[in-house]
């Protein structure tokens, strides 16, 4: 067995008759001859890892007898460890205190195990107590040194840590100060409790004191009568709860499990049995077929740069990123060439349905870039529907149209005013010849016609919108009738303005005809009259033209009212979809429209230091004020409209953000935080059971963040689905406590693949050695875990 496949049910605290010295008749039944009763009970309970741990005594025969049932077809027992329950007198805060400590020894050497019992006895063959029915701490450590086996120490802590009452033999009887010393020096690998109720109290205490990662609890039956196992004795009413640990069933595995709180549970939920998973990767090197076993949980691929780790992920996913155009054909070709050149054939390929997601190197960061935030397959489903910007934009546009319309007319009138010209007052006293004066040249009213046409056209647009609403499947029948009434009113309105327009059009047609006739008549008249008649006519026409111009200008100025912008403040809501602790927001870039917003639009298109208000500007001043504008003043207004349209296009664009619940939704999270969200969501994801593959999740994330949250996210992910990670970061391997490590390397003989759980070791390699050799910083990280194995030396 190379990979961690399951959690194992554990009981390292069972007494035999050899505890008689302390327990008296309570253990009378637990003889070598009755060990079958214990095995039967252990089978009934499905206990897989166990140890007989007698008080200050080790009986090798009893250990060896139970060990015979290891991995037998009809036995649940997979591993039996040698162990002793020591009574150790520690110097506490206020005097000495005896604590019961279970020591579990490495079973690597039968010869060494046989010597355990001897180490506990003095020259006279009695238990080598140097205190009253107990060992001093020094003596205890000396015995462990003498036994000279790697050791796991588990201290009694039967009462919960929140309990105000102390219980004899518990670790915390040494007083708070010494107890904390035990914790902070990792004196004990774990603390043992039994009562199911205490699990919650202990967890609460650890969370409150911030020691959740420093203190590990396991349970032990402390059974003194095998007939009533897992009860301690017949009268025991405690509700016992078993501990499960996730590891390879070996002493190294036990060490790895018991030194990581995440590998210890009271339910066997380390892996999701219903999740889709790949049991192994099938491949061949130089024609030799082999399989790399995979764990149902976390699998990491390590190895030197450019050795083919990323390639392996791409190959496993059938080059899926090529379909989405995220990798080029040239990369696929070079990968295939690399495999051919190295004599490697990867035969396993996952189907689309088997994959929850595959994130290439750097892809997580890219997911949160503006253009991709909504398009990502995984994130897309979390966002609420987009907000329709049109109703808000129209409000703003309406106000802007008032301003643009005013300026357009103002500039036109300014031009008329500038070009009104001059005439000379002449003396017509001597020119009383009869003459015709062509006065009151009528002009076509095209502007009115255009305005009336726009009204009826706009009303018809509204009618079509109303009809669309009527066709909506969700609208109630009553409201359809209301809308039909509105439609009728609007139809009438449109017809009214159609009528008005046709009157104006008719007048314009008449004016055109009249102008044509008049022009013709004038031409004929001027060629048939005297010069003096012409002069009189011409002067009178000039006077008439002047009057007409002044009247037109005055009237149009009077009608071109300075617009009053009174835009009631409208907040544009943010649509939010809460997903766990995050809020997926659908919003527009602009969040409020009001007078200030309108004002800001002009400020944004004008040069800094423009003091004159846009409403008071002349065409020339506008041209001068516009940013990056070097056109003629007559083009300035059009440019202003275009610039503001661009701003509106940007401001009313849909925007998607993710915020943390409780924080200001208008604030956006940093890129680093985005990655955190992504991994959070992936870890929460439970609708899809596919495999998740990722190439170097550590990219763009600080070591601190990896430690503080990312590892936990992956840990949770690993309990729900199979995860395959390519990484160079030791934290992802050792601190994440992965279930399987796959090393890809190259020797003179060609490609090498080695794999197994962290604790895996065989005659050829040892996974921890591989990590320390091939991962930068791996050794430092591992040293912190290795000290567990070296406890015998350390003490």
């Amino acid at each position: 067995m190379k990979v961690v496949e399951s959690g194992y049910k554990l009981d390292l605290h069972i007494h035999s008759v050899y505890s008689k010295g302390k327990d008296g008749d309570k253990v009378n039944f637990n003889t070598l001859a009755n060990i079958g009763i214990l095995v039967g009970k252990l089978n009934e309970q499905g206990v897989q890892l166990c140890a007989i741990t007698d008080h200050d005594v080790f009986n090798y025969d009893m250990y060896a007898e139970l060990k015979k049932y290891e991995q037998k077809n009809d036995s649940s027992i997979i591993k039996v460890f040698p162990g002793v329950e020591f009574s150790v007198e520690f110097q506490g805060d206020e005097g000495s205190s005896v604590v019961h400590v279970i020591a579990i020894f490495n079973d690597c050497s039968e010869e060494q195990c046989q010597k355990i019992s001897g180490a506990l006895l003095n020259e006279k063959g009695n238990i080598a107590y140097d205190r009253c029915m107990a060992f001093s701490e020094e003596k205890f450590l000396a015995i462990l040194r003498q036994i000279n086996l790697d050791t796991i120490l588990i201290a009694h802590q039967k009462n919960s840590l929140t309990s105000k009452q102390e219980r004899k033999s518990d670790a915390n009887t040494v007083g708070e100060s010494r107890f904390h010393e035990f914790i902070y020096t990792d004196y004990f690998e774990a603390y043992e409790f039994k009562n199911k109720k205490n699990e919650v109290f202990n967890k609460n205490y650890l969370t409150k004191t911030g020691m959740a990662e420093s203190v590990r609890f396991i349970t032990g039956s402390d059974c003194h009568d095998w007939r009533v196992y897992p009860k301690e004795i017949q009268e025991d009413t405690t509700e016992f709860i078993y501990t499960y640990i996730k590891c390879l069933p070996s002493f190294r595995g036990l060490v790895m499990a018991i030194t990581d709180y995440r590998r210890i549970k009271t339910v066997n939920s380390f892996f999701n049995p219903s999740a889709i998973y790949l049991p192994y990767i099938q491949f061949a090197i130089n024609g030799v077929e082999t399989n790399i076993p995979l764990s149902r949980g976390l699998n990491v691929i390590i190895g030197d740069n450019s050795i083919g780790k990323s390639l392996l992920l791409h190959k496993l996913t059938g080059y899926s990123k090529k379909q989405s155009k995220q990798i080029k054909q040239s990369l696929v070709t070079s990968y295939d060439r690399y495999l051919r050149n190295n004599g490697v054939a990867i035969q396993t390929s996952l189907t689309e349905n088997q994959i929850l997601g595959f994130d290439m190197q750097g892809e997580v960061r890219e997911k949160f870039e503006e253009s991709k935030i909504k398009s990502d397959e995984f994130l897309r489903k979390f966002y609420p529907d987009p907000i329709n910007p049109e109703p808000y934009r129209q409000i703003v546009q309406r106000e802007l149209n008032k301003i643009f319309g005013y300026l357009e007319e103002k500039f036109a009138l300014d031009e008329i005013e500038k070009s009104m010209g001059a005439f000379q007052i002449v003396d017509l006293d001597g020119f009383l010849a009869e003459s015709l004066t062509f006065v009151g040249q009528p002009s076509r009213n095209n502007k009115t016609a255009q305005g009336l046409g726009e009204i009826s056209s706009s009303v018809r647009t509204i009618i079509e919108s109303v009809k669309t609403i009527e066709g909506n499947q969700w609208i109630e029948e009553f409201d359809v009738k209301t809308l039909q009434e509105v439609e009728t009113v609007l139809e009438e309105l449109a017809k009214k303005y159609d009528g008005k327009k046709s009157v104006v059009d008719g007048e314009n047609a008449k004016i055109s005809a009249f102008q044509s006739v008049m022009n013709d008549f004038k031409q004929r008249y001027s060629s048939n009259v005297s010069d003096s008649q012409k002069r009189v006519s011409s002067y009178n026409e000039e006077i008439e033209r002047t009057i007409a111009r002044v009247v037109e200008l005055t009237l149009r100025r009077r009608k071109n009212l300075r617009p009053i912008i009174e835009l009631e403040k409208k907040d544009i809501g943010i649509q939010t979809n809460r997903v766990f602790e995050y809020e997926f927001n659908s919003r527009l870039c602009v969040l409020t429209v009001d007078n200030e917003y309108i004002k800001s639009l002009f400020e944004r298109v004008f040069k800094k230091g423009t003091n004159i208000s846009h409403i008071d500007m002349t065409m020339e001043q506008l041209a001068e004020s516009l940013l990056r504008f070097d056109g003629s003043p007559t083009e300035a207004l059009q440019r202003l409209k275009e610039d503001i349209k661009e701003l509106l296009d940007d401001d009313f664009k849909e925007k998607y953000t993710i915020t943390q619940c409780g924080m200001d939704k208008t604030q956006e999270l940093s890129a680093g935080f985005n990655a955190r969200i992504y991994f959070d969501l992936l870890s929460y994801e439970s609708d899809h059971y596919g495999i998740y593959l990722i190439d170097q999740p550590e990219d763009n994330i600080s070591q601190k963040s990896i430690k503080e949250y990312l590892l936990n996210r992956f840990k949770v992910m690993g309990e729900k689905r199979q995860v395959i990670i390519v990484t160079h970061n030791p934290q992802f391997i050792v601190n994440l406590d992965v279930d399987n490590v796959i090393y890809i390397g190259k020797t003179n003989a060609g490609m090498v693949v080695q794999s197994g759980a962290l604790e895996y070791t065989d005659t050829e390699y040892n996974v921890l050695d591989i990590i320390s050799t091939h991962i930068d910083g791996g050794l430092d990280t591992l040293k912190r875990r290795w000290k567990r194995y070296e406890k015998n030396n350390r003490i």
Partner: protein
Amino acid sequence: MKRIIEFKISDDKYVFLENQKNVFEIRNDDLQVDVKKFYNAFFENNLDYSDIELHNSNPGDKIGGRVFGCIKQLIDEVSTRLMEDFQDQKCEDTVETIK
């Protein structure tokens, strides 16, 4: 509000004064009427044109009389038409309201 415009002759120009302030003038060497200036003087910025009274301070001056007559004609005609438009507009609004 009644506006009183006084017409005076100075050395080289004919001047129209309103509240003793020169609002419009015509040089006597060319008798050119600058229409923009005329508009600015009497009708711009919603100046009240409903009751403009022009006084000729030099009725004996022949050319001055022609200048005065021309400007008075322009002011009267413009004011009348503006008033007519104003009345027309009022009527249209009333008709719309009745409709």
